[in-house]
Each structure stands twice: as C-alpha cells, then as structure tokens.
C-alpha cells in the first residue's frame, strides 16, 4: 500500500503573509491558500473549524472573508464535524464554489459526498478546493479536557497552544507554563473511530499539508490533483509561499513516510482484529 497516496509534487513551504504566520500552527499554508483562493474567486467561501462558546472546542463555520478565515487558525486536536456544514454552505450561504479543510477522514467524507451524494444534493459539482491536514488521531472534547485539566493540571481557558509531536502531548499556557505528557498517558482518550483510520496525509485531498517532515515553522505540502496543481501553481506565482525542495530539509519525507506507515500498520491491525472480535463474530469492516 502506498501510504502517502497519489501526488504530483511535494515541497516544504511557508506562507509569506506575516499576519497569517503570526497565529498559525506551522507554515500558515491552509489560511494562505484559502485567502488567495477567496481573493481570486476560485472559491466563494470555505467550511472551516472555528471557535465556539467553549474553550478549545472547535465548531464548523463558513468563512466568506479573509477576516473570517483568520479566525480558524491553529490546531485544536478535538473533533470538529465540518462535513455537517457542507450542504449548508451551498444552501443557506448560497456558495457555488466551496472550499473545505479537514483531517483525512473528513476529506474521505467529502469525496464520498461527491461520488455518492446520497444526501448531498447539488454538492458534488460545487466543491472547488479540498485541503487536507495530516492527522494521527483526535480526542473527543471531554477527553481533551481530562488530558489538559486532570493530567496536565491546567485550565482549558488558560491554554495558548497544544502540540502533539516527538512522543509528547505539550500544553503551553498564556503565562508560559509548559507541561508535557507522554503519549502513552493520552492514548486511552483517543476517539475510538480513529483506530480504524487508514489515511494519515489526506490521500484524496487536492492539497494536503502538515508540519511533519519540515523544519519548525514550515509545512510539508503535497499537491495531488489537477485542481490542486492549478491552485497551488497560481498561488506560488502570486508569491503566497516560499518553498524549499523536500530533499533538502530535515527531517524530510522519510519522517512523513515513517509516521504514515506506523499509523496505517497499527490501524490495519485493528481492522483485522475486528474480524475476530468475538467468538466466531466480527465487528463490521467499512472498507470491504
């Protein structure tokens, strides 16, 4: 199995937009690409994960201006059901060219909505730009609250940034306190549905991106489809990004491949084990 999916090119990249970079998780790729697409009329709005009334709980929303796009920056690590807004974006918001950002399972959901639009009237032809974000797993909101408040001992309201990487869950507060938890503490709070997920780098997005593989402050970007190639090419020509060849950065593509292989191997094992979960009884496999 090709764990990185089909792609036309891969680079290490960073936004050239200072305002966007300031509050972005990594290279500001998603916000900059959507800002460019919005400005050029490639999309007339985007479905994104934005803030809600609870601290650190994301809520899907439709952004139609650059100012609204900027509200969606940063990774939240807990579930945000973007696809619930996909049809709504074409209806209440009247969008004809919808952009959507999501983790791999949400990109799968978007492609299923396009190929099998069973309850997604008029959606298939209105998807204009699909951007995927790498994902190892997410937590339910209450799981994240347990991790931050009970294990890391911080109030969710006081948290400035969360990070998962290098075997650690890191919580950084507004006052600068840094708490790190080994991932073996947080594993049990992961969303169960993530354990059968066989996609790490959003294999069917137009463009997929994440920090893994690139130096701090940069992102690794896969350009995958015709649409992806077209939009990325134009954004590059317009000077939205600076890039470095992926084979000239550390830790490089090898790291992406390593993590993708780890995730998919582990989860494929879970899928296989589900076939013999009980005594002569299986749990359902959605992939066959």
């Amino acid at each position, binding site marked *: 199995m090709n764990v990185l*999916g*089909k792609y036309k090119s891969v680079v290490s990249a960073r936004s050239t937009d200072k305002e966007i970079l300031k509050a972005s998780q990594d290279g500001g790729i998603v916000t900059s690409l959507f800002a460019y697409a919005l400005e050029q009329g490639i999309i007339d709005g985007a479905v994104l994960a934005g803030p809600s009334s609870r601290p650190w709980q994301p809520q*899907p929303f439709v952004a139609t201006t650059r100012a609204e796009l900027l509200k969606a920056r940063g990774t939240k690590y*807990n*579930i*945000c*059901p*973007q*696809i*619930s*807004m*996909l*049809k*709504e974006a074409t209806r209440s918001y009247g969008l004809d060219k919808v952009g959507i950002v*999501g983790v791999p*399972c*949400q990109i*799968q*959901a978007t*492609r*299923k*909505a*396009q*190929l*099998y*639009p*069973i*309850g*997604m*009237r*008029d*959606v*298939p*032809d209105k998807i204009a730009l699909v951007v995927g974000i790498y994902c190892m797993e*997410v937590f*339910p*909101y*209450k799981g994240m609250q347990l991790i931050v408040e009970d294990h890391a001992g911080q109030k969710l309201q006081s948290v400035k940034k969360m990070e998962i990487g290098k075997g650690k869950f890191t919580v950084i507060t507004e006052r600068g306190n840094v708490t790190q938890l080994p991932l073996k503490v947080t594993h049990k709070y992961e*969303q*169960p*549905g*993530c*354990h*059968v*997920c*066989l996609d790490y780098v959003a*294999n*069917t997005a137009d463009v997929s991106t994440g920090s893994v593989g690139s130096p701090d402050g940069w992102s690794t970007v896969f350009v995958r*489809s*015709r649409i992806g190639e077209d939009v990325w090419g134009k954004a590059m020509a317009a000077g939205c990004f600076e890039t470095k060849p992926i084979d000239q950065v550390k830790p490089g593509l090898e790291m992406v491949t390593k993590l993708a292989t780890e995730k998919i191997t582990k989860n494929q094992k879970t899928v296989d084990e589900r076939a013999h979960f009980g005594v002569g009884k299986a*749990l*359902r496999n*959605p*992939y*066959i």
Partner: protein
Amino acid sequence: MANKITVGHVHMSGCTGCLVSLADNYLGLIKILDDYADLVYGLTLADVRHIPEMDVALVEGSVCIQDHESVEDIKTARKKAKIVVAVGGCAASGNINRFDRGGQHNQPQHESYVPISDLIDVDVFIPGCAPTPQMIRNVCVMAYLLLRGSDDQKALAAKYLKPLMALAKNPIASKANFNTLMQEVINVGLCMGCGSCAGACPVRAISMEFGKPQGARDLCINCGACYSQCPRSFFHFEVMDEYEAITDIINGAMK
C-alpha cells in the same frame, strides 16, 4: 444515438419527488434521454399502459400489500427488468410510509406499506428523501456503462455500483433510520465525528453534540440517507482513490 439502454419509471406509493429529482438534472436529463437511455415506461411521462421489457426499472415508492394492483406491478417490474433500482427512501427503506397505518378515505383497508425489497429482489439502492439528482444521474451513467460500455468501463461501473448493490441485499438497509446509524456505526466503534450524517439528513433530525451525532428520533422519517452517506458505512478505496477519474467520466458523459 444507437445502442441506448431502455429505462422505465415505475411509480408505487411515493410522492413523485424522486421523479422530480431525476428531472432536476435539467439539461442532464435531456442528455441522458438523448444519448444513453430511452424512456419506455412512466405513468406521467410515457404513453404506455403495461410495464414492458426494459434494461433498468427505476422504482419509486413503497408497495401497499393490500393493493392487489401494486403488488402485481412490482412483480411484473421484476420480471421485465434486467436491473431493478429502488430509487429513494420509500422504495429502499419504507421512509414515511413506515408511519402509515390505514383507516383513511377512500381506501381505509390500505394500511401496510413495505419497501420493495420485502417483495422482490432488488439490485441497487439509492436511499434518501428526496434522492438527489446527482445520485440518480450517477447511477444512470454507471448502469449504461455496465450494460453497454467497454470491458474497462464495465469493470469500473461494477466497482462503483458494488456498495449500492450490497445495500440492496442488506436487510438492515431496508429498515434504515437514525437507529441504523447508531447500531451500525457508533455501536460498533466506527464513528469519527465527520458530520456527514447530520449534513445529509433532509429533516435536520441530527445535530452534532460533542462531535457525535445526536438524533431527534421523532423527526426521523426513515429515509436512510444518514447511514449510507456515512463514510464508515461503506468506503471502498478501489473506488474512492479514483474519485478524480470517475468524476471525469461522469462529467464527460454529461457534456
């Protein structure tokens, strides 16, 4: 164009919304009728009294088992059609007809309505209320490729239709409603909170609470859209990884 397939619209107890959805392909419908399919039967559209031989029967609506004529019609449709498609929730899972219990003028004895797969073998399910124009279009194009395409096209159409054919053989799908989503996705540890189910529901019976679907079951009309739209009901990589090529084929066919 020569070598078109023949298609009929068989109307059982449904609201004609499925037919309207087919028509909502606008020029796409004209294209389908010009190049791919002759409409050989349809109460509202074709002046033909008896169900004729045809390649594909698009069946809309549930069957009332106390209505002799409907029971005979659905059996005839099965005998005369190579492929029977249950179009829409009423034909596939019963939909609102599941709430019928008779006692109304002028046929008070008509009280038992069943999805068509309770009475005949069905080949393809298109759930939803109304089923979407694009889903009906996709199935029409794929049915054409399956019956008239090159070997490659036949193989592709078979891959594409496979999960919709599996639904037609699955007793769970013919009873689908919000509970199906609970039982077949959440209860078996597959939900990842994407929200497709909530987005698909035509009556907004599903909200996402803390990242998981919450059903207002009194609102649910048994259309089956949430379950079959869910990426964790079926998701076949051999089809989904080819989404770009398949989209090209469908768009190309409609040009």
